[in-house]
């Protein structure tokens, strides 16, 4: 029997000169992971955007726990979204969505 895959949830704060939507955020993250770690690295990250609130510029991203540092590095390397200066800060990391939301509300 195979073990269940362990995951990590990252709380992200998106700051950009122009409004961005869910698609823009996940595209920027994928692009950054591909640029830094290539297709092989990206395939191990198991990335998925769980939610995005444009009013608060808040997003939750899920990734494999083994790829956490690489995903964090990739997120930190984002300097633009849709050609405009932007930055994505990882404000919290947790093993469960519930704890991450609790941390984010604090």
């Amino acid at each position, binding site marked *: 029997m195979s073990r269940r895959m362990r995951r990590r949830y990252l709380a992200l704060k998106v700051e950009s000169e122009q409004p961005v939507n869910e698609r823009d955020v996940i595209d920027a993250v994928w692009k950054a992971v591909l640029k830094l770690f290539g297709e092989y690295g990206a395939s191990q990250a198991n990335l998925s955007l769980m939610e995005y609130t444009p009013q608060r510029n808040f997003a939750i991203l899920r990734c494999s726990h083994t790829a956490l540092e690489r995903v*964090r590095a990739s997120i*930190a390397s984002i300097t633009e979204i849709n050609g405009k200066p932007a930055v994505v800060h*990882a404000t919290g990391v947790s093993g469960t969505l519930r704890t991450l939301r609790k941390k984010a509300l604090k």
Partner: protein
Amino acid sequence: MIRFVDLHLRAPIKDLDQVERMIRKSSELGYRLVGLVLPPNIMRDQINQLQHICNDAKIDLVTRVNLSPKTSGELLRDLRRFRRKFEVISVTCTSKGVARQAAKDRRVDLLHFPATDPRKRFFDPAEAELASKALSSLEIEMTPLLLLTGFSRIRLLSRLRREVEIAERFKVPVTISSGATNEYLIRGPHDYAALTVLFNMSVFSALRALSENPIDIVERNREKLSPDYVAPGIRVVRRKNCV
């Protein structure tokens, strides 16, 4: 709780709004000390103005000057002029002579090498040995890593990997700083620690390079600049008025 430090903010001093935005952003991201690059001829009231902005943002200001001398003689002259005026002195080493002189001079706090030209990164074992004796620290600036792309970034990463390995071997303290010119280039300390994975630095060493190592530099220099300082380990504790 770890006190994080960003010793290298290249904020445009003339644009106080921009300086304020950058300082507030640093504070928001968890930094407790920021080093602002100041022009060597800055006036005391301008520093007080910056100090006021930092106090409002609940962050400690560290005055820093970046020297980029062409010769080792020029470096010695600059060090004589500015050492007692600024809390942190960084030297951008553009030639091997300057790099060697900066590494062995105890008045130099940070050794900085140009990011875009790998031939001008003179941090080799000989440089590291001198730096470890003089307590100079190797500064790694993170903004070029964010801004460079393609082959230039590959070359920089490979160079940084080598330098970090040499620094660890010779026990030269490493300091990680942003070198940001605007608020979009500032990242949180944990994000920088994640980025250092790209040049084989452990997260533990990276967090030390963002907190303990720069704090050591600042505290050592503040002690030396204090009027009560006499020599290492000796300071005036009380003055008596003798008439």
